């Protein structure tokens, strides 16, 4: 499998805190890679370094061979990266349709180039896939929690990107919503999208991930198949906050 996005030795410190230390990753096309680890492991910081929201102290990242460190977030997005946020960051006072349409419009000028009908069709298809068509005129701020989560996914879908960075997209969803969300990801994977998922719900991770990278304190401690990672007692202990083995060592 080719990897449209690769990063090598990414590092970032905040004052004396080393948030990310030499993280290397490859996101293959048509595969789901999960970033797993306890809170504060540096997972979201890795996303922010890739998307240009934070500047890396060290390391490189490339999209289809093109270096992206130093690019602005909008420039990285235009190379085919779509991301979601833990806190969703919906356009709260806009309705659902405009939220999704906005994801199809990249120009900042008074007008958009390209095919307007194609953009409208992409937005409608994204709303249909996420079950939001009936809520197209509702303001984002008025949606229920699960609907907001799906609106965030609809924006990702409509953007037409082939690299998805999803930050806790399934947190707080009930079982049926989680299954619908899982199907969206499986469909995207089948289309060849490279997906990177930060997720604390291990059931979701096991169900969807092809590979897992386990982060702790900014380091990738292990990388491999879900079963391999999930069955490692040391990683499980770190994940659940038990660091007694470190004291023993």
């Amino acid at each position, binding site marked *: 499998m080719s990897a449209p996005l690769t990063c090598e030795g990414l590092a970032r410190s905040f004052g004396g805190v080393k948030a990310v230390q030499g993280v290397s990753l490859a996101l293959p096309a048509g595969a789901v890679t999960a970033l797993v680890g306890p809170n504060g492991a540096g997972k979201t910081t890795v996303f922010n370094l890739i998307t240009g929201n934070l500047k890396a102290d060290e390391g490189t990242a490339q999209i289809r061979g093109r270096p992206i460190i130093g690019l602005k977030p909008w420039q990285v997005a*235009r190379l085919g990266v779509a991301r979601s946020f833990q806190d969703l960051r919906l356009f*709260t*006072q806009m309705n659902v349709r405009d939220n999704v349409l*906005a994801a199809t*419009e990249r120009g*900042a000028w*008074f*007008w958009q180039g390209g095919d307007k009908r194609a953009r409208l069709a992409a937005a409608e298809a994204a709303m249909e896939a996420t079950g939001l068509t009936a809520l197209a005129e509702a*303001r984002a701020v008025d949606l*229920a929690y699960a609907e907001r989560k799906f609106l965030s996914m609809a924006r990702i879908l409509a953007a037409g990107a082939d690299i998805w960075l999803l930050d806790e997209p399934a947190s707080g969803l009930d079982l049926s919503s989680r299954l619908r969300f899982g199907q969206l990801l499986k469909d995207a994977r089948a289309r060849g999208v490279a997906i990177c998922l930060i997720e604390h719900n291990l059931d979701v991770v096991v169900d969807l991930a092809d590979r897992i990278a386990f982060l702790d304190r900014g380091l990738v401690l292990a990388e491999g198949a879900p079963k391999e990672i999930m069955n490692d007692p040391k990683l499980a202990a770190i994940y659940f906050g038990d660091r007694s083995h470190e004291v023993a060592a």
Partner: protein
Amino acid sequence: MIAYFSNLATLVAIFGILAVTLNFMVGFAGIFSVAHAVFFGLGAYAGAQIALTVAPNPFLACAVAALIAGVLSLCLALPALRVRGEYFVAASLGLQMVALTLFSEVKSLTGGIGGLTNIPRPQIFGMEVGVLPLALLALGLLLWAIHAMANGSFGRTLKAIRDAESAAEAMGKPVAVAKALAVAFACAGAGVAGALFALHMSFVNVESFTLDQSVLVMAMVIVGGTGTLFGPLVGAVLLLSLPSALSFLTFIPPTEVGSVQQIIYGLAMTLLMVFRPAGLLGDQNKGKSHA
């Protein structure tokens, strides 16, 4: 009496332009500027200089005023790209102070404290024309342009930036370009209002472009309703008509009209914020969640 109402209507149309253009920045792009009077002033001085030194052609005066105000709006756009919210308000306040000093000191262009006088009446093909129809025409065109932009992709981009700037950027939108364009458009509109003001009054000086003026225009936007098309216009009508209406109340001594006006303004603003916090024409559910 006709001249009185014609003058009032002209001022309402000119301040209507100021209010709807400021609303474009505040209501759609979320850029809270308290320096709109600076660009009103730039437009007024530019329009006056064109009328005094080139020709009293209102279209030429408005075009030059829009160009100068639009280009110099970069002074406002630059801080808007770096800071948001109350920090930007402070930055625009600084710009207002600096500009006011420059207006007073650059006497060769502005006439200093004394201002520019004897600005000729506007003429088209040698015929003198009133400023009222020109101001109404400009206001109508601006309202049409704002309506078209607000309902199109540019308006969506600005509203997206207002609601969640980082998410808009993550969608591939160059936020800096969109903000700079919004500021340039709004300030160019203020420049047009300034040129019309200079041609209407035949005299401009720094007193018309103070912080008080910027705050008055902001009050028009808030009273009418931010992010609405006609709200700021309603705000302009109300806030400019009030002093005139009070002058008709004969039981208020002329010397006290100013104080009574301030009391009424204060009371009206307080009641408005309690009962219609989104402005007279604003969506009262704005900012609230019903989920």
